[in-house]
Every structure is written in structure tokens, then in C-alpha cells.
């Protein structure tokens, strides 16, 4: 190694240990310090290590009531450790939001059950990547009244973020990959069986959905089985769910509880359940510490149907992961 011009400079590996503990906004500012720091903060290994150090934050999305406006804006509020609000961002007409995966969200605008636009979003960097619409369904897809389903996640082998999109009971499935920047359409084998209950004419609706370790999961009503989609192999699989009698009929969906999928009607982060009290107050309950924390946020309540207004809570980590299509050419290399 050539001797550094500046022998008093702090070693780069130790600088990295300190910088990975900073929030995204400060890191973006410190890119201006020198070229070495710029390259360091942009590097893949730094981004990954930063993500691992990043603490959980809550993202609250708040739909305006339907009579507010014709297309109610959705405001997104980010709560940090001190429950302080910062970094507000608005997406007009957004109706669905799922995530987060490495601090990224998939969001879309749906009007009259028709998908109008969709995008990926990193709230920490404020990057938004609009993605092309998936191919439309063709006639006959309304058979058995199938619904539209989607999932978002990471193929961990190729580090590629993907969106899967399909209509229940319609055989073609589309997968969007960030590296391909296009949708791949394929027809899964025996897929439709997952959506047929014993009474052949009734579709099993999907309930809560969830990403975990390279796969996306949908909870199916009826037998409470779980449908999974592997983002690496791009293959669906159906796995047995919990005992039918143990599931409350008012169950909302799947949540991530530490490293497992749990069936519950709440959201969850950091071993904590996010609950809504009768007074419409958001509360987090840590199942490990048995501690309740008030999140100081009041609303009509969590709703799964955006048309009714309401709000939702997502847990996410600040992330430097970039979803820009082409890196802006480096200024100096």
C-alpha cells in the first residue's frame, strides 16, 4: 500500500465502522467531505453494513377520508426513536403500499380495481423508481371472481429486487425485476388450485401478505394455507397453515415475529406488536419485555380498504439502497 499523503488521517476501515452508524441524510451530506468518503458511502459493502446497523423506524401512511377530495393524497409520516416526525413525503392517489424490504417499498395507484401506476420507493433517500405496468389480464380472468395480488421482495442470490403480480384464478403471472427492468410472464403449474376451496365455485381470497428470506407469502382464507413465491427460482408453492380451529375468524393476516411468520391481526416490529386501541390510539407492545409504548398517534383506525380512509403502520429501516435506473456517472473515476 502506498503511504497516504495525510498520515494523520484516520484509517478507512475504522472510519467505516463509525459512518455506518449515521442516518442517511448525514451520510449524503458527508459525501462532500472528500472523494474517498464519497466512494466509501456509495460502495455495496457499506450500504449492506449500514442496513444491518440501521434501527427500526415506523412509517405511518394516512389516507384522507373518501369525501375529502376526489383522489385523496396520502401523507407518509416517519417516526424515529423519539417519535419525532420528519422527512414527510406525499404520493397523490396512492392506494396500496407494501414493504419494507431493505428499507424499500412497493406502492401503487389503483382506481376501480384497475392498476394505474406503480413504483418502488426508498423513503430514506427519497428515491422513487416508476416501473412499467404489468401486462393487463385478458378476458375470462373474472372467472370465479379472482382478485389481484402482488408481492415485493429480494432475490438474495442476485441482489435483485422483484415484484410479483397475478390475478387469482388467472394463470399468467408477471414478475418484474429491477435488473431486467421488465416483466417476465409465465404460467405456474397447478397454481389455480390454491385459490379453489372445496366448494369449487368459491375463490379463496388472500389475506395478509408478507416477505421473509427471499420469498413472499399470502395467507389464504378457507383452509388457512399459505401460498409462497420464491423470488430466486420464481416458483409458487403452497404450504399448510395453522390448525383451522386455532385461527380466529377475524384474523387479518400474516406478520413477521422475529424470524417466523405468525398469523395475527396486528402489525409487528422488533418483537413488538402494533395494536390499535378502542380509542383509535396506536400502541406498540413488546412481547419480550412485556412493555407497552404509546405511539402518540390517533386516527380512525387501521383499515385494509383504502376507499374507507384510515391509516396503516409499516416498520422499516433507513437504507442507502439505490433503485435509480442508471447510476449518475461518477464525477471523478
Amino acid at each position, binding site marked *: 500500500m502506498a503511504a497516504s499523503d495525510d498520515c494523520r*488521517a484516520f484509517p478507512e476501515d475504522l472510519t467505516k465502522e463509525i459512518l455506518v*452508524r449515521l442516518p442517511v441524510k448525514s451520510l*449524503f451530506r*458527508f459525501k462532500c*467531505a472528500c472523494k474517498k468518503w464519497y466512494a466509501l458511502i456509495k460502495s455495496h459493502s457499506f450500504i449492506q453494513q449500514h442496513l444491518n446497523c440501521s434501527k427500526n423506524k415506523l412509517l405511518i401512511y394516512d389516507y384522507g377520508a373518501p369525501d375529502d377530495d376526489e383522489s385523496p393524497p396520502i401523507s407518509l409520516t416517519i417516526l424515529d426513536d423519539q417519535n419525532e416526525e420528519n422527512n414527510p413525503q406525499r404520493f397523490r392517489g396512492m392506494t396500496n403500499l407494501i414493504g419494507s424490504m431493505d428499507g424499500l417499498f412497493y406502492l401503487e395507484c389503483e382506481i376501480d380495481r384497475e392498476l394505474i401506476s406503480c413504483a418502488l420507493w426508498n423513503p430514506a433517500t427519497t428515491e422513487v423508481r416508476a416501473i412499467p405496468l404489468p401486462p393487463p389480464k385478458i378476458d375470462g380472468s373474472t372467472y370465479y371472481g379472482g382478485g389481484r395480488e402482488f408481492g415485493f421482495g429480494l432475490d438474495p442470490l442476485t441482489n435483485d429486487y422483484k415484484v410479483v403480480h397475478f390475478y387469482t384464478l388467472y394463470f399468467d403471472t408477471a414478475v418484474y425485476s429491477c435488473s431486467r427492468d421488465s416483466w417476465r410472464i409465465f404460467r405456474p403449474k397447478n397454481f389455480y388450485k390454491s385459490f379453489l376451496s372445496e366448494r369449487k365455485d368459491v375463490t379463496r381470497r388472500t389475506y395478509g401478505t408478507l416477505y421473509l428470506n427471499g420469498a413472499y407469502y399470502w395467507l389464504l382464507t378457507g383452509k388457512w394455507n399459505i401460498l409462497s413465491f420464491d423470488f430466486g427460482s420464481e416458483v409458487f408453492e403452497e404450504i399448510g397453515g395453522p390448525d383451522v380451529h386455532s385461527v380466529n375468524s377475524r384474523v387479518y393476516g400474516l406478520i413477521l415475529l422475529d424470524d417466523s411468520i405468525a398469523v395475527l391481526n396486528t402489525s409487528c416490529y422488533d418483537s413488538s406488536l402494533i395494536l390499535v386501541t378502542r380509542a383509535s390510539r396506536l400502541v406498540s407492545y413488546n412481547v419480550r419485555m412485556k412493555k407497552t409504548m404509546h405511539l402518540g398517534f390517533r386516527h380512525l383506525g387501521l383499515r385494509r380498504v383504502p376507499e374507507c380512509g384510515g391509516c396503516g403502520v409499516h416498520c422499516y429501516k433507513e437504507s442507502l439502497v439505490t433503485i435509480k435506473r442508471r447510476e*449518475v456517472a461518477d*464525477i471523478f473515476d
Partner: protein
Amino acid sequence: MASSSSSSKTGLKKMLTLKSSDGDEFELEESIVIQCQTIKHMVEDGFSLIPLQNVDTKTLTKIIEYMKKHAEKTESNKEEIKNFNKEFVKGSFDDQFELVSAANYLHINGLMDLLCQSIADRINNKSVRAVREIFNISNDYTPDEEEKVRDEHKWAHEGGEFDESLD
């Protein structure tokens, strides 16, 4: 492995000597020092006098203070340890950097975490100019280049005054 655990059961406290780069020697109980992975491995290899060529006396004294306190850690004195940690990270940036280098060399993970987080918290709201000074970095951008880098994330440079102080 089996022999080392049986020797600790005999009740006799095994002592170790740490020697700083200035030549000063510190005698400590083995149970305190094994928080440090580098020394633990040397103890397992049979060393009892451990020369630390990269750690001067001033830094080593601080590190020993940390290891002694953290060896006392129990369920009941969490608050005390927390206060100790708070005081421990109060030094100048240069002292803290010395400690980071030593903690990294000695592989004391808890200390490394404590120091890096505290430095990060202290520089979080600093201006770019202050951070350059603190880390001894010379600005190698041309004014044009710096302007372009700033424009990549304009919003990150907005939102109030940043701290220009160097402590």
C-alpha cells in the same frame, strides 16, 4: 478447552500482565482481560505476559478501566454501567479515535460499538467542514466537483444550521 475450565474452578485467580507500547506493565485477573478477544486467544496459546505494541499507556489505562467495570456487569447494575459508558465517551475526538484503534486491535466488540456509536452521534449534526477537520481529511474536490456532489442530494444539505464546532 476442558482443562482451562477446570483450572478456573480451583479458586485461584490466574493473573496476566499487559505491557503497553511505552513499556508500562499492568497486572490483571484473567477473567477481566478475556473480554478482549485478541488477548483471550493469546491466553489460550499459553501467554501470560502480553505485549501490546499498538497501545500506549494512556489508552491502555482507559481500556483497562472499561474492562474492569464491564467485568462487574450484572442484572442489577445496568444503570451504573450505562452512566459509566456515558462518562467514558466524553473525551476529545483524538482520544476517542485512539481508543477506537485500540478497541479494534484488541477486538473488544462492546467497546468498539460504544465508541463508534458515540462518535457517530457526535458528528451527526456537524457541518462538512467540521467533519473534515475532525477526521483530518483534506478536501480533494475542485469547487465544481464539490458543487456537483452537493447537487446529488440537495435536500440533505438543507434544514437548518449545521454545527461548525470541533468538539
